[in-house]
């Protein structure tokens, strides 16, 4: 029901308890290092770090796999593109394609790099509640407030959007069913006909969403919300010794990955 990126596995592991900001900084730094370094040895170091973090998180493989699955095509495509088009001494040719060991190696490297990136990124999204993550991002984005970027309001917007995605999907399904019951057909005809078939679905969905926005705004005001107010949080972001350790370990891993 939810996009893979927002998939959160509630838990109480060491990784879950780390501060969202520390995790985000660590993951971003690792991702950058991953792209700077272009050797299998470096990749191995980052992969090992990712696997250890994953094992510590206690997230079931099935959840992990769900985050991975949608990206398999992307990874496979990257591999194929590199194998087919990378330059190098061919050991096998077919039509316009040349297969070279160097190309194969490069393709494998790029695909593995993507795999490691998804691994590390998934540990973050699987162990961090979306709310904590948006709060963390809002905190990290605070310097932007000086440029009049309303970071807290943006974070709240993202939270609300995530909250309503499942609701919206259910409504979309209901409206499509209702119009199908009146004879609407969404699956045949050319692209223009199909696009036109969506009018009876999208119109009510928009109307519903606008009404929702109105009612939600009212309910928020009724609970004393006003844009620009200073809010506290039920679960304040709290960095502890663990987060310092995380950042230190991350620094060490990056150093190792870049130097091996």
């Amino acid at each position, binding site marked *: *029901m939810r996009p893979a990126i927002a998939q959160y596995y*509630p838990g109480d592991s060491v990784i879950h308890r780390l501060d969202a900001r520390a995790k985000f900084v660590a993951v971003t730094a690792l991702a950058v290092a991953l792209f700077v370094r272009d050797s299998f040895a470096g990749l191995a170091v980052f992969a090992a770090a990712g696997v250890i973090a994953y094992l510590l998180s206690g997230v079931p493989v099935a959840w992990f796999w769900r985050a991975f699955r949608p990206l398999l095509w992307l990874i496979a495509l990257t591999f194929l593109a590199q194998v087919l088009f990378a330059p190098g001494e061919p050991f096998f040719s077919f039509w316009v394609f040349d297969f070279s060991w160097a190309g194969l190696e490069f393709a494998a490297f790029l695909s593995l790099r993507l795999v490691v990136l998804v691994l590390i990124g998934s540990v973050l999204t699987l162990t961090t*509640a*979306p*709310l904590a993550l948006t709060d963390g991002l809002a905190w990290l984005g605070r310097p932007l407030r000086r440029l009049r970027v309303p970071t807290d309001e943006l974070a709240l917007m993202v*939270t*609300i959007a*995530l*909250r309503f995605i*499942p*609701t919206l999907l*259910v409504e979309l399904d209901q409206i499509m069913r209702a119009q199908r019951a009146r004879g609407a057909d969404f699956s045949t005809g050319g692209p223009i006909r199909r696009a036109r078939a969506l009018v009876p679905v999208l119109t009510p969905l928009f109307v519903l969403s606008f*009404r*929702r926005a109105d*009612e*939600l705004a*009212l*309910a*928020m*005001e*009724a*609970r*004393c*919300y*006003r844009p620009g*107010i*200073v*809010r*506290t*949080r*039920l*679960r*304040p972001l709290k960095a502890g010794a663990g987060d310092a350790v995380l950042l230190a370990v991350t620094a060490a891993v990056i150093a190792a990955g870049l130097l091996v």
Partner: protein
Amino acid sequence: MTPSAAPARDVPEALLQIRDLRYRYPGASVDALAGLDLTVSAGEFVAVVGANGSGKSTLARILGGLEKPASAAVAVACGHDLLTEDGRMAARREVGVLFQNPENQLVAECVEDDVAFGLENLAWPPADIRLRVDEMLARFWLTELRTREPHLLSGGQKQRTALAGVLAVPRRVLVLDEPTAMLDPAGRAEVLDAVRGLRAEGLAVVYVTQEMDEVVGADRAVALDHGAVVYSGAVRGLFGEGDLVRRLGLGLPAAGDLALELAARGRRLEPLPLTLDELVRDLGWTP
């Protein structure tokens, strides 16, 4: 505002005082509220009834400080003047409003975060929020659902969560705008159970509804028609005026409905029975 501070000034007898209240929606040709009067005191449970479009929801919004009245001779909620911007903002802290659609009131990704939302907006310290949220969760039987996502809740659970969120902010008045209209009987019973205890705490409750069964327990019934009060008084008195109830497009409790049909056929039951027990008794059947 600090968490423990109940407002320290004198508690006025009347928490809501409204006289000659008027409101018109932009672009509308008639007033949604046309000279409405209403007074509600602490500890009072007032049912407000009226057909769709009679102005009930508009009234609920104005009482909660969420809409600016067009004009009023008096419009005071918990001592705050609803005609001024500052007064409305202050009223929002003391007058809670629960709306009809449970889905469109929940903001946060899980139950306890949603209950905390109002307190976060009032910048309570996190430790105090935690205490108050736990108290609300326990009171509305939500403790086990605390980490549940809103879209996985039943209608009744959603509405209880919304109610807990409204009451997490300490209130003196609670306005409920048809809180059971979109719920199934089970959800409706849940919400009514949750509302039942509120009066005992000295909260003034304004309960807007079209369900006549829910009106029966109220201290007072107020009927609206075209934005004005056409009846204010005992619940029984409202039903006694069967013609009025029908003219307003409202329904009677089933027992009253049958009694009116009987009256039309020449068999008059006085006073109008409102429950099955009363009807059985009035029909002269003793078990």
